[in-house]
């Protein structure tokens, strides 16, 4: 094993594991890319480092300057780790109903948490952060939803790694949050092989967002629009909490300890495998299970876990 100069050098180059034993069809292989292997624990380490490096390069981030970011968790945690190493104070705007472990991890790295109303979901966190950024022009507002360095991290990192490790890929499946992963990886893979299908998975998170006043309070990330996301994606499917938890358990059975959104993507990949013929599906597991132990996903009664997952933002 090589010796690395800095923990940030450990970001990326994550392993891919063949989990075809989960496939209902012997002619469809399923592989999972384990982003929980990143040092901060999620795929968002890539995005955090990419956005900070870009901001340092173009001068929008000065030594010691405070950063502000809306997040449902992982981006905040990734940023908090990078900021700790590089000496930047960080404020994260996060919905009040995220899992306790997300809060604890931000505290580990010393980030300040600003709570937004849980019933407004991530949309509420985005709105509050935008307001704070206007009030405090001295903050560096990287804004993952509109920052080209977000998809760039995947276009230059995650995508090429998948192509290097599995050029026979026919389908790439990942969760949709900011859309950074799907845009960056999808664009890279389609440039190499236009026949590659890019499928998005999302939770029915709109069900939990009771705080919207009207539909015009909805949100589409600017990076999705800017990169023609509607044309890039071939399919988008919703996976509910119950199927997500069952996905987490299926992954556990093959030794993969995954987060809840990874379970959702696994469930979608397994379903896709049942519908396809002669395919190689690569799906991305954004994080491991550590941050979800309090969800009881592996051990509690499925009905109870499902009910909990409808109240708490695990995505």
């Amino acid at each position, binding site marked *: 094993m090589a010796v690395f100069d800095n923990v940030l050098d450990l970001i990326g180059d994550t392993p891919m594991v063949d989990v075809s034993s989960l496939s209902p069809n012997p002619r469809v292989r399923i592989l999972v890319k384990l982003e929980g292997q990143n040092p901060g624990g999620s795929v968002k380490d890539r995005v955090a480092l990419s956005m900070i490096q870009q901001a340092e390069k173009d001068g929008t981030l000065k030594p010691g300057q405070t950063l502000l970011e809306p997040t449902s968790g992982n981006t905040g945690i990734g940023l908090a780790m990078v900021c700790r190493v590089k000496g930047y104070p960080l404020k994260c705007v996060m919905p009040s109903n995220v899992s306790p472990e997300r809060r604890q991890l931000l505290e580990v790295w010393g980030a300040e948490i600003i709570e937004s109303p849980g019933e407004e979901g991530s949309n509420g966190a985005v709105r509050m952060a935008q307001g704070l950024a206007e009030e405090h022009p001295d903050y560096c507002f990287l804004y993952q939803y509109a920052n080209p360095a977000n998809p760039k991290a995947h276009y230059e990192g995650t995508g090429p790694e998948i192509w290097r490790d599995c050029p026979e890929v026919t389908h790439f499946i990942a969760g949709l949050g900011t859309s950074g992963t799907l845009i960056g990886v999808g664009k890279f893979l389609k440039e190499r092989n236009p026949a590659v299908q890019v499928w998005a998975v999302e939770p029915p998170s*709109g*069900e939990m967002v009771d705080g919207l006043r*009207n*539909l015009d309070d909805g*949100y589409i990330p600017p990076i999705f629009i800017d990169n023609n996301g509607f044309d890039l994606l071939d399919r988008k499917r*919703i996976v509910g909490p119950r199927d997500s938890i069952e996905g987490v358990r299926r992954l556990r059975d093959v030794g993969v300890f995954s987060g809840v959104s990874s379970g959702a993507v696994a469930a979608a990949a397994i379903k896709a495998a049942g519908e396809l013929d002669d395919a190689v599906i690569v799906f991305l597991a954004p994080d491991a299970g550590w941050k979800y132990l309090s969800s009881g996903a592996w051990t509690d009664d499925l009905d109870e876990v499902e009910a909990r997952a409808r109240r708490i933002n695990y995505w």
Partner: protein
Amino acid sequence: MPVDVNLPTILRQHAGGQKTVKANGSTLQEVFEDLVRQFPGLDGQVVTDGALHKFVNVYVNDDDVRYMDKLNTKVADDDVVTILPAVAGG
């Protein structure tokens, strides 16, 4: 042909507070037209200017219809149509 339509919290006020309503049609377009006939308050909410509202996602069973045939997406008996506001993640 009746399908079940799941309404988001924000639209239930226009359907007497119901979470799920029945509607008829062989395409999504027809289903939405029937919905508006039953609940005129839904007019202009989900479909605006002949297209899906920018911040609305509509699914037939699990699939987002924007990546299928949009409003021309076919529906069959017992399909479930789900309407949700577009929200961010990350």
